[in-house]
Every structure is written in structure tokens, then in C-alpha cells.
């Protein structure tokens, strides 16, 4: 059973992803509504993959950073998580279209950036399966 940390402030849509991941078998999902909860969870236990939204409230973790009203919160979170977990695959899943932000996310090693508009739960599971192939 792979353990996934799903970070997304949108409660219902992320619940669909979470449920779908769990139903597909093979995944146990921990959900965090923002960077604070995410970092706390990441400190406490090990994960096999992270799925992060980009646009989120910065929380106390990034309140002093230039997140542009939360538009770039994911950029800071992914960098911080990468420090803690240098190897674990990270998928950034968002509807953000700002090229600059997407480029910044992609520049972090081992990160793939997917559009929520394209990657509905089933497709995401396929992608995740591929990434976590033993």
C-alpha cells in the first residue's frame, strides 16, 4: 500500500480524488488542506508520493513569502517538500495557467505538472501508477 499526501484547499474536489485513489486499491491517502498541515504531516511520517495543488492560501508557513495572494503557494511548498524528501515523486495538479509559475514548479527535480482540467481522477491514477512502478 503506497502512502500519498494530497495537498489541496478545495475540499470537495480533492475528496473525489482521494476517494478515487483509495478505491483504485493500492493507495492510502492523507489529505492536507494547506501548506501548514502538509508540512506537519510530511514531518511526521514517510510518503511514497505527493500530489500538490499550486494555488492555496499560504498559511503561516509562507505568509511572509511573495505568494501573490496564494497564487504561487505551491511553488514554495514543493521546494520545501523537496528539501525534506529529495527522492519522492511529486505531482503538481492545478488549474493555474501562468507559465512563469508552471516553469518554476517544473524546475524542481522529480516534479511533474499536470492540469486538473485534463487529469481527472482516473487519469491521475494511471499517471501515478506509471510513476510509482516498482
Amino acid at each position, binding site marked *: 500500500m503506497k502512502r500519498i499526501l494530497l495537498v489541496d484547499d*478545495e475540499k*470537495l*474536489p480533492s475528496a*473525489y*480524488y482521494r*476517494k*478515487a485513489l483509495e*478505491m*483504485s486499491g493500492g493507495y492510502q491517502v492523507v489529505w492536507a488542506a494547506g501548506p501548514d498541515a502538509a508540512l506537519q504531516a510530511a514531518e511526521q511520517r514517510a510518503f511514497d508520493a505527493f500530489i500538490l495543488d499550486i494555488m492555496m492560501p499560504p498559511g503561516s508557513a509562507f505568509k511572509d513569502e511573495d505568494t501573490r495572494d496564494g497564487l504561487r503557494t505551491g511553488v514554495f511548498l514543493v521546494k520545501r517538500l523537496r528539501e525534506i524528501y529529495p527522492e519522492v515523486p511529486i505531482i503538481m495538479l492545478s*488549474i493555474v*495557467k501562468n*507559465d512563469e509559475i508552471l516553469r518554476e514548479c517544473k524546475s524542481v527535480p522529480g516534479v511533474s505538472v499536470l*492540469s*486538473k*482540467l*485534463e487529469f*481527472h*481522477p*482516473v487519469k491521475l491514477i494511471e499517471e501515478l501508477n506509471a510513476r510509482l512502478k516498482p
Partner: protein
Amino acid sequence: MKIGFQSILYGRRFGDIERALDEIASAGFRGVEFAQSPAMLRRDGVANIQILLGLLRERNLELVGLAGGTLRERMDFCGDPTLLRYLYVEDEDPVWDEVWKRGFKLALHPHLFMRIHRLEDASKLLDKPENQKLLFLPDTAHLALVGDDPVKAIRDYGKRLAAIHLKDWAPEFGRYSHRYARGFVELGKGIVKWDAVFEEIGKRMKTRVDDKDLWLIVELDSSRTSTWTSVRECAQWLSNRPECRFPTPMSEPRSFSTGVFHAPAPPPRVIPMEKELEFRRRLTDASTKGSGTFYHEVARAYHELIPCDLTQIWILTPSEERLDLVGYYADGAQQPVTWNHLDCGPGAAQRPLFASVVDTLEPQAFNLADTSEGSRILDKPLFDHLIKTFDAVGGPSGPVMLSIPVSNTWNSHHLRFVVNLFPKASWLHSLAALENGFAANNSVPALKASLSPLLDELDNLSMAVSPEADSVLDERCLAAAGRIQRFIPSRGASRDAFPKFFVQAVSKSLNSEAAALFRVHSRLNRLEWSASVPERSVWNEHLTAGEQFYEMDENRNTSKAWALGEMRFRATEQRRIEWKSREMTSHPERDDCIFAPIFSLRRREVIGVVRCTNKEMEFNPPGPVATDASRMFTDDDAAVLDAIIQAGRPIFDQLEIQEEQIATLGKIVHEFQFPLVAIRGAADLMNLSFKHGPHKSAKDFFGEDYVDDIFQWTEILGRHVDNADIFRQSYQGNLPIRTSPTLLMSQVIAPAVRQVALLLREYELPAQAIGYDSFSYIPTLDVDRNQMQQVIFNLLSNSIKYAIDRRHFRVTMSGSRMGGSFVIRYADYGPGIDAKYKELIFKPGFRSPDAHERNVSGQGLGLSVVRSIIEAHGGTIEIGKERDPMVFIIRLPQSLAMKSNP
């Protein structure tokens, strides 16, 4: 109330004062405020105040006020302060105390383009404790034009009103934010809200204690028809307002003369008639040659009228209290050019010798050898040069300068420019020999006296000069505005296109070194760089987009001056940017800049600022060479810039509206996307639930695959939302292309066809009617897969919506390689399109008349989005054939082929 007339309509000099007063009286007015100075009145034969009063009495008119000439001149002319109501003033003057001591009343008139132009400026003076005797003379049009409410002026100073100027103004293209203010019109034809004005006047009348007789003075700067027509028109308008109790004007002016007054006989001519005719001919010719040449030609025309060593033309820029040398003509050697502008304001440390001509509009002669006058010459090098080199003769007469004011056509009380003539000494002597005084004792006063008939004649001639100068300026304004009006927004014009075009037009029209446009960013409340010419100008080093360089007050005006639409501010010693308007005015020596605010027509706010630097230019050698002589921007340039801005305003407003709409569209798109993602997630989850439950699938449970329907509808909805989003992004010039290796057939066309499956069902069209030919000629391409799907989806969705019926519905797609391109041919056997719409259908918002007729839904975005996507990939799309079938030809560059392809 009593209603009088301002005689400015009759010019700086009446010529026939009796005729003018006849007209005023015949129209029904009861008094006159004279604009003509005592000196000018004398030239018309009014030697003293008694003669003037006599002329008025004959016509049952009262002397209300005197507005022309210096205060001292007017007091001396009147003698007795009880003979009139007030003396008109526009600004503070040390003489005021003396005026009050002598018992005269002063009436302050805020005036456009003068230091005191707003009610606020006037209040500062009126409210000073030492100025409590100062009366107020508000002007309805002048106040309305600077955005003040004349009603407030009347209300606030009801008890201190000397009179009220009733004046109206109507917008005239491009010409009001500078001193050539034209557009003053007969009452009732302009912007002044007269009902409110008269209502307030009525109220104030009741509160006036000591002086119930409030004078209303009707004023009109110039007439476009005849003076009588204009006077009568104003009178007619007044007589139609019951509250004015104004009589119906006579149909023709009658003569009130009792024969007591005799107009003076014209003096003998000094300048021969044929010379004058030649002079006029030269001016007319010059007026077609552009402003650079024009001023040189004017100088030359004067030069040939009177043999001179040097002739100069100085343009006045009143808001700067500055004179710019814009043209000159010289005999012999090239002249020194260390001077090109002079500060002429009352406080200027180096006020030029001829500043008094600027103040009084009186032609004058100056003896340059007279040390008391010579020491007041600003341009010392020129002075020394003249003394040394020129055709100077000994004796007290020395070199002489004749200074001739040329006034403004539309208001003869405003100076347009000054002509300085340095006549040849030999010519002066031959002229003087004809005159008794000069020949007899050769003294300076005698010289001046002997020159006065010549000066009068030159003054009269100058009246012929200003209309020509106006027509030159008109031409420049029209040409400049025309440039702007030729701007045609191209398909999906990005917001950068017009600003670029605009600054280019500014730069060209003003012959400037560089021009830049800064636009107001409302949310951040600052001005941001928008476009400049040249693109890599000095400013770009300091001013990148987003850099703030002007602070704005809470009304979003960078300074009071901007709020008024005033434009001239010059740069300080450096071009660095923390310029505030105050600093700009203080160092006129260096780089000359012109700044102009752009006002929104719809919001009455500054929406941008243009900034322009003058070309550093050397003087060309004298002669018939076209050149723009001044290194400073003159008022003429300001007028041209104004014309450009006026022409550009509607387009800027349009741009702003579009940008707001596009920004809103962006927000709407985002609002749509969030639930879309959620619906898909839920549907997905439902499918998974079925899979893990007893029914295995939704179809098994429902009998139909409704969950898949939800999916498909969300995809269609998603495509429509994407259309809006792609449209927004391409408008903003940042449509991002995210490429990945893509096979057209399996990864673009097939998914798009799948996505329209529900639409086909809805329109009852057969899915098998969509066919494809071989795409084997097209290898894997590096394109944005999702966007390419959008292209095919949009084309298919159009074909489906416009399909005639199920029998005729057919679409085929094929791929080939042709020339340097991969070609997708999309053939649609539907109704086709009229040849005249071949290009138009790619324009955002365009919908064919057929679409309206047949009630086909849509916003006209689909094909414009298709073109944006294809062009963003470096390709093209066009209609190859209009019908049977209609064919779209999409060409994609071969460079999109993956490197790994053979």
C-alpha cells in the same frame, strides 16, 4: 441686474469705435467693459475719457470697466475712479495698493492658461486679509473649462462680485487645452449650464446689500460670421430668457451718432503699398510650407518689407512665460546662436528687453545703444554682436530694434509671437530724414517719435500675419490627428498595438527625439510604461514596466495641472525619474520635455500620460532652408500634441473597456473551471464506484451510460470555456503553447471527434459522416495537443451547428505535406460561406448573417480561436474554397516535426 457687453469681440483696436458701440447699443446692451487699452483707444481717436463717455452717453451706454492696458495707464486715462465700476485684473500686481489708494476698484478674473485659472487659485487671492477690497469677476466659460462650477463661484462670492462674464464654449476638435483656445461661442451654444447659473444669480441678487446692480457682461472672443450677427445672436438669446428682462434686439444696427465725435484721419503711409502687397503675398505662400519654413518665411517677409540686418520671430509660451526663437533671417554672416529661448515673466531675472511688448501688445522701438535698455537685454552675446558687427552708426540713435507683437487670431488680446526687426541704420536715417524731429536733433525720444507712424503701420500689418500662422498650425493639427484616426485595429489587436502606433505618431508629429506613453494602472494606482519611440530609448533604462515614476493624488491626478489638461513641464537637469511637476518647471535650461495627460472621455480621469523630448537641434544657417528652429517645444507643438490626444482618446477608452472586459472574462473562466473539475471528479468517482459495486458499470445500472454523458458534456463545456480563455490569452498577447510529441490522427483528431459525439446525437447527425483520409504524411509533431484538439473541436462543432440536414452532413479531413508545410485539409459539405466573409469569419465576434437567420447559437469566437492557436504554432489557416465543400486549409511549419522523425 444690468447686462453689458465686452468689446473684445471688436479686436485689440476698434478701427471704427462708433460703429462698434452702435451695434452694442442696438442689440439692447446697457454698458461696455472695454478690452481696448487707452493707447489703442487713442489711436481710434478717443483722446481722453470725456470723449469715451460722450460716445457712450449718445448710445445710453454705461462705462462698466476697463480691461486693456496696464493698471497705471488705465487709472491715468480715467482720472476719476467714480466714472467706472472696476478695473479688470488677472493676477497680483504691486500696483494694487496704489490703485486702491486712488479709489479705484479691482476685479479679479480667473483666466485660462494664466496663473490664476481655477476658482481655488482665485480664492487664495480673494481670501487674503490684505485683499478684502478685491472684487471678483468670474467667467462662466473659463471656469467651466477648467472643471470648476461657475455656480459655486457665484455662490461663494455673491457679495464680492464686481460682475459676471457670461461666456460660452463648445468643443472644437483638438484645440482647447492650450492658449489658442478657440471654441468660444455665442451664448447657449456651448457647455455652460445656464439654467443653474441664472438661478444662482437670482439668489445672489437678493443677498446683495449695498450694490443691487450686478452687471452681467456678455463676452465673445471672436465672431465666425460678423460682429453684428454675433452680438445680436447673444442679445436674442438673452431676450428669450424671462429672468434677464432683456429687450428684443433691433434687426439692424442703427447709428446713434450726434456728430460730435470725429474719427482721426489716417496718417500718411510709411510703407509703400506695393511693398505691403508683396508682404501679404509672401505670407500666404509661406502658409502652405509647414511650420519650420513658415516662421523663417515670415522673418524673411518682414526683412524685405524693411531693410534689416536681422529679423527674429519669437513665439510666446505663456504658461512657461517663455519666448522661443523659431525663425530668423539675417543679412551677411551667420548669426550667433547661443540664445534660443528667453524667460519673459515679470519675475524673470533675465527678462528680455522687449518683454514690455509682450505685456502691453504695443509695438515699440528700442535703442540698443541706450545703456539703461541695453543692460536689460538677456542675450548678451547677441547684443554685443549687434553692437560690434552690424550696420551701426554713431550718435545717440545707435542700432535700433523694432519690436512688433503679433496677436492671436481668436483672441486679439493674447500674444502669438513677437517680431524683432533690426533695421539698417542707413534705412533708418533715410526714414528719419523725412521726419522733422529726428532730423533736427537726432535724440532718442525724437527717434522714437519719428518711428511711431511706422510702428502703427507694422502693427496693422501684424493682423495679417496671425491668421496665416493659425492656418499653418491647423494643418499640423489636422495632419497629426489624421495619423491617429488612420489607426485600424488589426484582427484581435493586442493591447500593445495602439500605444505603439500612438507614440510613433506623437514622435513624428512633434519632431521629437523620443516619445513615451505611460498608462494608469488603476488597481496599483500608478503609471506604467506602455510604449516608447525609439523602443530602446534612454527612458527604458530607468523605466521598465511596472516602475512607478509619478505619484498620484487621491483623485488619480498626478498634479493639479494634469487635472486641467495642461501639458507643458520641462525636464530638470537630468532625465531621472522621480520628477514631480514642481521640479520640472524650475530648470528650464536643459532637456526640454513636454508632458500631456490623456483624459478618459467616459471617466473624467487621467488614464495615461504622454511624454516627449525635443530634438537637440543645431540652427541651420539662415536662408530658405526648412528647419524647426526652436530647441524647445512651443505652444504650437503643445497644440499639435493636444490634437493627437483628442483624436486618440476614444481609442484609448475603447481599449480600456476591452481590457476590462477581457479581465472579467478571465475571472469568469476561472469560476467555470473550478466546478468543471469537481463535476468530472465526481463523475469519475461514480464510474469507479460502479466498477467496484454489484452493477459493474453505469450502463448496467441505468440502461444508458449516463455517467459517460456527464463526462462528455463536461468536456464540451470545457471546450467552450477554453475558447473564452484562449481568446483572452491571445488578446493579452500571451497564449502559452505547451508542446508535447503528438500524432495528429490518434491524439488530436480522434479525441476531438469523440468529444463531439453528444453534439452529433443532439443534432441527429450520423457520426460516420465524419471521415478522415490518410494522415501518414504527417509525422509526430511538437505541438500543444490540447489546443490542436480545440482547433478540430471548434471546426467540427461549427460544421455540426450549421449542418443543413442529416443527408447532406459530411466532413472529411486529410493530411499532406506541401512545400515547407504540413497541411490539414478540412472539408465541410455544409452550407458554405460567402466569398466576402472569407477573412471576416476569423474575426472575434463575427457571425455570418446566416447564423442569425437560422438561429445558430454561438459567440463568434470559435474560428478566431482556431486562427490564434494555429498562428501561435507558426502556421496559417485560410478558406481554400467557399462551398461544395467549404475547405479550410491549415498549414503547419515543418519545423514542428520532432527531431527524431526521419
